[in-house]
């Protein structure tokens, strides 16, 4: 009796494993590289940092638009999670299909370097979009948001929301050691110390560990210590979510303004509901367009810009419907 159960159990497991491997095999789907002159029909691949994220979907939209214009065949891939151990096998599969160019948002500054180097050595032109790797020899061009500038924008947004009033402000970030959010925090702190001296930092940067619960309890405790807090810069989605919830539960929604980062559908909903009063939006669409542009230049042997810092912009309830702003709201699909 018990033995039969075991057999059934292991059979189920075995079938499951087979299915998993079979699915994994699909990822290497290669469409033979067609020859042809110029760029037309050349194969480009965009490797996103993670699948299904509106930031990367918007980047995909920009890249696809530009690829269509140039007549390039663009394929899009991405790991299920932002994790180099998941992305690297996909990169190796891409390498096997020898695309003319690869736009990639590497998942790790060190771990992603080896497969990218292999791809580059096979003659594929590599453009790093959004995230980077430490090894400076990888990538003909690196295109990313200037996160430090983004942090300064957040300070500017808070200043505008508060009409230049004096007061205590606080930064709640994700975890120390993440280059993008660390740069946002540094930019914000710099701006508070030099430009917006009407603000004082209420305490050291607090961390949410990307958990809304932690962010909520941290902000509530901070509000006890600093009941006169006027503004918070929350450096990512879950942090902003938790900060807004905590402020609301403490009954201080009218007093404390929250500035979030990124402008995906979730953040826009937060903005419309009034949980968050301003967002600093990156321009992933532009990153996608410029990524394909630079990759095309590299493939054609034209001059390539080695480093491009894209700007960010401030989104509020008031300018949300302005077409110049709304085109930068991240998309669920193209």
């Amino acid at each position, binding site marked *: 009796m018990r033995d039969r159960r075991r057999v059934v159990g292991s059979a189920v497991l075995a079938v499951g494993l087979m299915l998993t491997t079979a699915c994994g095999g699909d990822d290497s789907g290669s469409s033979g590289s067609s020859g042809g002159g110029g760029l037309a029909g050349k194969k480009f691949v965009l490797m996103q940092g993670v699948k299904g994220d509106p930031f990367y979907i918007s980047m995909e939209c920009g890249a696809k638009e530009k690829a269509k214009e140039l007549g390039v065949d663009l394929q899009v891939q991405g790991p299920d999670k932002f994790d180099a151990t998941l992305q690297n096998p996909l990169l190796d599969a891409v390498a096997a299909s020898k695309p003319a160019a690869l736009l990639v948002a590497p998942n790790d500054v060190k771990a992603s370097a080896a497969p990218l180097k292999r791809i580059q050595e096979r003659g594929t032109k590599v453009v790093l979009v959004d995230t980077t790797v430490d090894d400076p020899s990888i990538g003909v061009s690196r295109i990313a948001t200037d996160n430090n500038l983004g942090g300064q924008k957040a300070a500017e947004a808070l200043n505008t929301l508060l009409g230049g009033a004096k007061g205590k402000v606080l930064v709640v970030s994700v975890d120390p050691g993440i280059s993008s959010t660390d740069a946002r925090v540094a930019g914000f702190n710099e701006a508070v110390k030099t430009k917006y001296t009407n603000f004082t930092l209420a305490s050291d940067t607090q961390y949410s560990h*990307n958990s809304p619960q932690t962010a909520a309890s941290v902000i509530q*405790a901070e509000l006890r210590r600093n009941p006169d807090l006027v503004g918070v810069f929350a450096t990512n989605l879950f942090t902003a979510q938790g900060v807004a919830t905590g402020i609301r539960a403490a009954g201080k929604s009218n007093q404390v303004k929250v500035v979030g980062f990124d402008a995906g559908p979730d953040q826009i909903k937060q903005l419309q509901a009034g949980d968050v009063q301003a967002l600093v939006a990156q321009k992933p669409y532009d990153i996608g367009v410029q990524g394909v542009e630079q990759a095309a230049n590299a493939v054609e042997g034209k001059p390539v810009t080695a480093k491009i810092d894209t700007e960010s912009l401030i989104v509020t309830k008031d300018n949300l419907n302005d077409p110049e702003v709304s085109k930068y709201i991240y998309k*669920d699909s193209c």
Partner: protein
Amino acid sequence: MSTETEPATVAAEEVTPHREPVLRTVVRNPTVVTFAVLVVIILGFTVAEPSLFFQGDNFLQIAQNVAILTVVSVGTTFVIITAGVDLSIPAGIVLGEVFSVKALAMVGGLDADADATNAGYILAALAGGVLAGLVIGGINGLVVAYLRVPPLLATLGTLGAGLGMALVLQKGVNTATYALDPVGHGHLVPGVPNLIWIGLIAVVAGFVLLHMAVFGRHTYAIGSNPESARRAGINVERHLLKVYLIGGLTSGIAGFLSVSYFSTTSIGGHSTDNLQAITAVALGGTSLFGGIGSIIGTLIGVWIPAILNNGLVITGVQPYWQQVAVGFVLIAAVWFDQLRRRSRDRF
């Protein structure tokens, strides 16, 4: 396997050495030391920042923030008392969130804001969360009890599968809703947020089920020694299934509560909620080897990290130290508890 109920009841009472009045059981509870630790921590912060820390509304806020973890930890207590473990809690919570918003969408309440919502929407979302929890819990229970896969691995499997399923159902994107605001931010009793009452209901229900019902005695019996529990006539497999169903149910409800409180699903979040719940249960004196544990202990265990985090922020300790402190208090509290037990065993 015998399923006669008569001998089962009699046998279970033989397993518990001697029955005592409930009150004395509580007083002799292995959580007294942990409670003392909590009191010492509270006293420490009170001395440091009396006007900010030791205030009624601060404790109300902490209670509101730990309510969701409290619900999960009650379920986890049952699982751990059977010498099991449930790592799939984040999957239960996230799927609970997803099923809640899917159910809301089905009844057309997803875009209703706080003023336009109604009890029907809320009940639909709750039903979604409960269903998600029962599915995860049911799979855990079947795999652990009947396929005899070790709980650590079985629930590790459902953790990955459940989180993946949530991503599939949501296509990787979160859904925001304000329709559940009355649950997450409402006050049926002025001044006391509803989440606190919900946490309290979970604690009372868990207490009754574990300490005052036959169900609890069977749970302890299986945790102490599954073989003797079986010989005593308890249907161990069926009971384990029920225990994992409770674990899943509390996770699913926590998912519903999480959407209510944070106004959105967080399919990439909750990744450490299983460890937080296990920490709380362990702090509360429940043995990870099974057979020993209490709901009140778990409640205290939930509060210790929460108070530490709150107090360290209020006293302005550098943020990095918060994690260090919680880690050491966990080790210290469990060690004290071990010492106390060892010294008791000598007599």
